[in-house]
């Protein structure tokens, strides 16, 4: 099954890795990429700008109902949950936080798993809470591929450890291997 979408989730300790990943995408990237990252309320401003600084493709917070297109990088907007509808549009929601998080990785990953099924590639990075565990399980349940950052290599290992406890990922990789992996996409 060829990859139809890449989703990346992370929290504390993931920011620098995401920055490096964003430098890797070629302009003819054939799939959409989604970033679902926790951010501190204080750094709501300037987050998108910082991610864009060295990114090879523009990173943008989508509007509700926007059509998903290949080669685009979508960043879950701050203070919203992001979901994907069957008709390949983005849906946003302000329903309650999940694991004290909005956007929540569980919410987003589950909805992407439902739409892309075996075509989904999910990447879980460093983080300090258990958001993402249920979402990663959903990706697997729907036949998707799961790559998790090696907890020993994480700045904060809670998020990846928790996900690995529930789901056997396809690969557990260090940052340098993750970079290699993504550059081969």
């Amino acid at each position: 099954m060829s990859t139809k979408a890449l989703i990346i989730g992370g929290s504390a300790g993931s920011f620098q890795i995401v920055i490096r990943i964003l430098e890797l995408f070629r302009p003819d990237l054939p799939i959409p990429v989604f970033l679902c990252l926790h951010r501190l309320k204080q750094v709501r401003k300037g987050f998108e700008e910082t991610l864009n600084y060295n990114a090879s493709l523009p990173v943008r917070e989508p509007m509700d109902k926007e059509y998903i297109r290949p080669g685009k990088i979508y960043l879950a907007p701050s203070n919203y949950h992001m979901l994907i509808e069957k008709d390949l549009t983005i849906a946003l929601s302000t329903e309650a936080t999940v694991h004290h998080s909005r956007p929540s990785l569980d919410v987003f990953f589950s909805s992407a798993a439902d739409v892309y099924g075996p075509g989904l590639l999910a990447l879980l990075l460093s983080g300090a809470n258990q958001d993402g565990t249920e979402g990663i399980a959903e990706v697997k349940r729907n036949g998707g591929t799961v790559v998790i950052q090696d907890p020993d290599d994480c700045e904060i290992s809670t998020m990846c450890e928790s996900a690995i406890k529930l789901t056997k990922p396809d690969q557990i990789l260090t940052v340098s291997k993750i970079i290699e992996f993504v550059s081969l996409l």
Partner: protein
Amino acid sequence: MDIENQDIQAFIETVKSQSDYDFSDYSDKSLKRRLSKILLDRKLSLEVLLENIRADDDLLEKIVKDITVNTTELFRDPAVWHSLRFDILPRFQQQSNIKIWHPGCSTGQEVFSMMILLNELGLLQKTHLYASDLNEDVMEVAKQGIYKYRFNEGYLDNFDSVIRENPRVNDSYFDVPYSKYFHVDKTRDNLRMNKQMLTKPVYVKHDLVRDPNPFGEVFDLIICRNVIIYFNYELQNKVFKLFMDNMSPGSCLVLGVHESILGPFASRFDKKFQAYFKK
């Protein structure tokens, strides 16, 4: 709990046949999520839930309420409130009165934000504030004006940003005390709006999906943020028409930061600042 698309359909049909509520044009994913959560919380299968709904109107009301709860904050997205403060509300200064509608007001934080801002601009006295929601329980919270404090500490930062600071003039600071509008009680963990603000807005139960304008007024400003994200494209257009038909010339509509007017009504508005102005 995993819910399939045919389950959602069965739920929509059951609710529709037992009541006036119609979720056919809601965003699939949000509806699915909320229904899953309801089943999980109540430890019910969908079949049992639907059976119970058919037998019990009160339960149906409760489920509808669970599905239609939206969260809202005091001065969410300060940039929007800055725009209201400096670009939008001053346009109504010369009018003898200002009419504002908050459809889908939920627990009322936006209504209070608006009242505070209007008061700082000296416009509150001549403003008529109307608020509505499908869900009477959340409107009851709005009428009481009492919120959890601990989860909402960001409220004070937002207040500072919108009311005390002026991002357009360096180093300006308005020393407005919180106690002018609300009191924080840390032991009880609540933030309580001052009494004089509770009687100003008119709250009415209203279903955006099917009801006409409940107030019989034409509005200068409609502020409806993060409500239409739960509606599909067709229903959004229906709502835009309802808004447009009840807006005065030069009036404006404020949507959520990530919401936009798509489709046939886009050409009927000018997007300026953080708002849609009726042409």
